């Protein structure tokens, strides 16, 4: 699918800890148990380090993990 949820950083501007660059919204693909999920996340334009906002980790990501683990 070309679409995907968009997650901005939790509160305020963030910089990459390695490069010091300001994070930019970009499309990344999360993969879990052979399923791929597109999502727009803040990432470092230089090294590609991606930030996973807490709202995502504790929200959709957790739900999807539980569903895929079939628990």
């Amino acid at each position, binding site marked *: 699918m070309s679409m995907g949820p968009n997650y901005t950083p939790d509160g305020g501007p963030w910089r990459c800890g390695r490069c010091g660059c300001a994070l930019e919204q970009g499309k990344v693909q999360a993969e879990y148990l052979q399923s791929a999920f597109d999502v727009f996340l803040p990432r470092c334009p230089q090294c590609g380090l991606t930030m996973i906002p807490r709202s995502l980790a504790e929200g*959709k990501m957790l739900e999807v993990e539980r569903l895929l683990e079939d628990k």
Partner: protein
Amino acid sequence: MSLPWAHPLFRAVSGGEWHPGGTAATERLWRACRAALTDGAGHGTDDARDAARPLRVLDAGCGEGAAALRLAAEGQRVVALDRTSQPDWRHSSFPAAGASRPLFCAADIRRIPLRDGWADVVLCQCVASLLSRPENFFAEAARVLRPGGVLGFSDLVRRDEAQGRPAVCDTASPLSLSGGCAAGAHRREAWERLLRTAGFRLLSFTDESRELARLTAQLVWYGDGESLRQIGLDGAAGCRSVCRKGSRPGYGVWVAVNTRQTI
């Protein structure tokens, strides 16, 4: 509540085939059905001329018809039925030269408009649980299949320990067992009893619950709050997060042969 596959989110995620596993699952089921016919489980195909002819396939509950179009494109004679006619039946692209086109028809799959013994293969994917009296569909499938014809069947399977125990899920969720489209899910043994009663001999069962989990996960991931509410996956009372495995349906696939000896 409307059925979840009428929703644009479901259509976008499921990619044209409205059952868990999509195209790949249909291909697996089709290959298994063909193998069952050639293995002689579906005797009557020994005659070389008979084996070379196109197979007569009924797709019972065809939805938009993607699977029917593919089977017709590979040269099979396909009749595809669904309860309501779909715009795609008319608009789908015409097949390559030489390939036939499925005959699409709006019909109740518990009253199939085909003569006795017409079909070599009947496919029915994730549809029977939507029916009241699904046994009428199995009886019809046995009637329209020739002796030795093969049924490829898949549907939602109850996995809770004790039959009749109320599911803990939100009653509004179509994918929960207590309401919506999973309400017609049966335990594996109950589906198999329906198949045997209609005169089928079971050849194989495959647990494809993982495909259902994948489809649900895609819906949850790509759906916004509003869409998920509309298809009943809004997580009311945190349902979809906290449901135990046993209270979510699984998904099973069967291949069975029609044991009737005469038409």
